[in-house]
C-alpha cells in the first residue's frame, strides 16, 4: 500500500442485515488518491452493495474484512461521520425529501462539517451554490425546489452531482449515475466531475457502471470487474472495452477456471 492510498478494502464479506444472504464474498480493492477506478459487473454482482457499505447503510452487515479510508477504520464511523471525513455517494436511486429545499438541505450539510459553535457564512454558501449550479448548467430556481420531489430521473442524477460539487468529497462513489441520463446530460455530469478533479487532483472516484459509454467521458485509471461478490479481474481501460464487446460470460468462465485452479 502506497502512502497515497485513499481507500483500501481487504477481504470484505457483507450480508444483508437480519438475513443470511451473503452479497460480498471477499472484496479486495486498493484505490490510490487522485485516481478514477471503475467497477463493472452484471446485475446482482454486489456493485451497489459495495457503494452502500462504504457509505454506512444500516441495511448491511459486515461479516469480515477491513476498510481503511485515509488511514482510518471506516467501518467504525457513522454514515454522517464518513461524509464529513470526505466520502460521498451519488445514489443510484436518490431519495425524495418533500418540503425540504435543496438550498436548505445543502446549507445544513455544510454546517454539519463545521466545528461546534462555528457558523456557516451564508453569503459564501450562496456564492458557492450559484457557481456549482452554473457549472452543471442548472437554473437558479433549482435550489428552491424540494429535494428530488417530483424530479425526473435525469434531474435526480444531476442533483446528486450538484451535491457532490458543493460538498467536495475526497472520495466520490458514483452508483450508476449514467443510467437514466441522455447523452447531453451525461456530458454535463461528466464535465462537472472532471472539473472537480481538476480543482482537486487528489480527489478519487469509484465509478460503478454497466456501460462503457460513461467511461468515454470520465476516463478510468483502473477497471475492476465484479462477479458474484468478488473482484475477478482488474486492469486498464481496455478491460471495459473488451467487456463491452464480449460480455460477462467470458469472465465467468475465467472466474470458474480460477476456482478450479484453487
Amino acid at each position, binding site marked *: 500500500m502506497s502512502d497515497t492510498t485513499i481507500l483500501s478494502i481487504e477481504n470484505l464479506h457483507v450480508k444483508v442485515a437480519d438475513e443470511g444472504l451473503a452479497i460480498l464474498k471477499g472484496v479486495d480493492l486498493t484505490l490510490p488518491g487522485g485516481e478514477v477506478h471503475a467497477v463493472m459487473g452484471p446485475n446482482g454482482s454486489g456493485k451497489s452493495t459495495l457503494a452502500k457499505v462504504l457509505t454506512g447503510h444500516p441495511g448491511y452487515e459486515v461479516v469480515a474484512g477491513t476498510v481503511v479510508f485515509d488511514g482510518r477504520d471506516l467501518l467504525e464511523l457513522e454514515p454522517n461521520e464518513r461524509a464529513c471525513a470526505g466520502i*460521498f455517494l451519488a445514489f443510484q436511486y436518490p431519495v425524495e425529501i418533500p418540503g425540504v429545499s435543496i438550498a436548505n438541505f445543502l446549507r445544513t450539510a455544510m454546517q454539519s462539517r463545521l466545528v461546534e459553535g462555528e457558523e456557516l457564512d451564508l453569503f459564501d454558501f450562496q456564492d458557492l451554490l450559484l457557481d456549482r449550479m452554473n457549472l452543471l448548467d442548472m437554473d437558479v430556481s433549482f435550489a428552491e425546489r424540494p429535494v428530488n420531489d417530483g424530479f425526473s430521473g435525469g434531474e435526480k442524477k444531476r442533483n446528486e452531482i450538484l451535491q457532490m460539487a458543493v460538498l467536495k468529497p475526497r472520495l466520490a462513489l458514483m452508483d450508476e449515475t449514467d443510467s437514466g441520463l441522455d447523452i447531453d446530460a451525461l456530458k454535463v455530469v461528466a464535465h462537472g466531475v472532471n472539473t472537480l478533479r481538476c480543482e482537486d487532483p487528489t480527489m478519487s472516484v469509484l465509478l460503478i457502471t454497466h456501460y462503457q459509454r460513461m467511461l468515454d467521458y470520465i476516463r478510468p485509471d483502473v477497471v475492476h470487474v465484479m462477479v458474484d461478490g468478488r473482484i475477478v479481474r482488474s486492469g486498464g481501460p481496455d478491460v471495459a472495452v473488451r467487456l463491452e464487446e464480449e460480455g460477462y460470460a467470458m469472465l465467468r468462465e475465467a472466474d470458474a477456471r480460477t476456482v478450479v485452479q484453487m
Partner: protein
Amino acid sequence: MVEVVADRVAPEQKKSGALDRGVVERLAGDDPEWLATRRMQALRIYEATPMPSTQLEEWRYTDLSRKLCLDKLHSPVAEALPDDPQAWPERLRSTMAEDHDAVGHLVLVDGSVVHTNIGAHLSSRGVVLTSLRRAATEHPTLLEKYLATQAIPPEDGKLQALNAMLWTDGVLLYVPPGVRLEHPVRVTRWYSETGAAFFSRTLIVADSASKLAYVDEALSDDFDQETLTSQAVEVFASDGAHVQYVSAQRIGRGAFCHAAQRILLGRDATLDMLNVSLGASTTRVDLNARLLGSGADSNLLGLYFGDGDQHFDHNTSQDHIAPAARSDLLYKGALDDSSRAVFRGVIRVAEGAQQTDAYQTNRNLILSDNARADALPKLEIHADDVKCSHGATVGQLDEESLFYLMSRGLTRAQAERLVVVGFLGMVLQRLPLGGVVEKVTRVIEEKLRLGAHA
C-alpha cells in the same frame, strides 16, 4: 404592604362561585336586554344538555370527565391590564414585535380586550375591528343578527352552550361590501391566570366581494392548575368574499383549549384557513365549513405537533349544501414522546349538491414508540354527480430518507428535524401569512430539540 396582601386574598371569595348560575346572572346584568335574554337561554340549554361522554362517537377519544373538571375552574378575577404595552408581559410584547405588516391589531389579556387599533383609512370606509363586549352596545344590529345564531348557537352542544352563557369578551371584525384589506388583522391573546376558565367569541363578517385576512395567535406560559380557554369562532363569508383565517395556538401546558369554529360561505366565496395547534395539554377543535352558495371554495389546512403527554382532537366537517362548490382539507401532524392525536373528518354532500368537489387528507408522522395517532375519515354523500376523496396515513420516519441525509453529513437528529419540518412546513407554505411560518417553524424546531431529536 399588609393591606396589599389582604387585597390579594379578597378574590378568593369570588372564586368560590365557580362557573354557576350566579356568574351568568352577573354577566347578564351588564348586557343589553337582548343579549341578557340570550345568555339566560344559553344557560337553560346548558343545564338541559348532558356533558358529552366517550359513548358518543365524536368524543370517543377525548374523555371530558377526566380532562375537563369544570367544578375546579373559576371565572377570571384579575383586573384588566391597561392599554399600554409597557405593562404587558414580555412574551406578549416580543410576539407582537415580530408581526409583519398589519392593517389592525387587537390584544386580549386574560380574556379581555386591552388594545385595539385599525387603520383610519379603513375605519372611515366602515371597517370595524373592536371588542365584542363594546360591540354589544355599539353594533347591536350586527351582533343580534350574527352572534351565536346562524353559526354557533348554544343548541350546538354542551361546550357551545357553556361558551354562549359565559363569554366575557372577544373580537368583532366587519368588512363592508367591496372593501379589501391589503394586510392581515392581527389578534394576539395572552393568558396568565391559572385555574381560570376563559370564554371568548370571534365574529368575522366579510360582506359581499370584500377581502380580509385574519391572524389569531394565542399564547401563555405553563399553568400549574387546569385552565380552560374556550373560543367560539363564527365566520361569515358573503357572496364573492375572500377570507383568510389563521389561528396559531401556543398555549402552555395545563390548559384545555376548546375551539368551535364554523364558517358559512355564500356564492363564490373563498376561504383559506389554517389551524395550528402546538400548545396546551388538551386541544379540541370542532371545525365546520358550510358551503351554502354555489361556486364557494374552501381550503382547510391544519397542523399539529405533540410532545410530552399532549392530546389533540381535531373534529372537522365539510358540509356541501349548494351545488358546484369545492372544499379541500389537509391536516398534518407529528407526534413525539407519548402524545396522541385524533383526527375525525367528515365530508357531507347534501341531496342536490351536484358537481361537488370535496377532498380530505390527514397525514401523521409518529416520532416515538409511545406516540399514537388515530384517523377517522368519513364520507356521507347524498348526490350522484360528485368528486370526493379522502385518505389518512399514520407513518414513521423513513429510514432511507434519514440515511440519504446522513450520507451528506447531517447527524441523525439534524436529519430527523429536517424531514419533520419539511413534512409539516408544506402545510404552512400553502397559507404563508405574515410571520406565522417563521414563528411556527421555530416552535417545531424547539420542540424537536427538546425531545430525543436534539
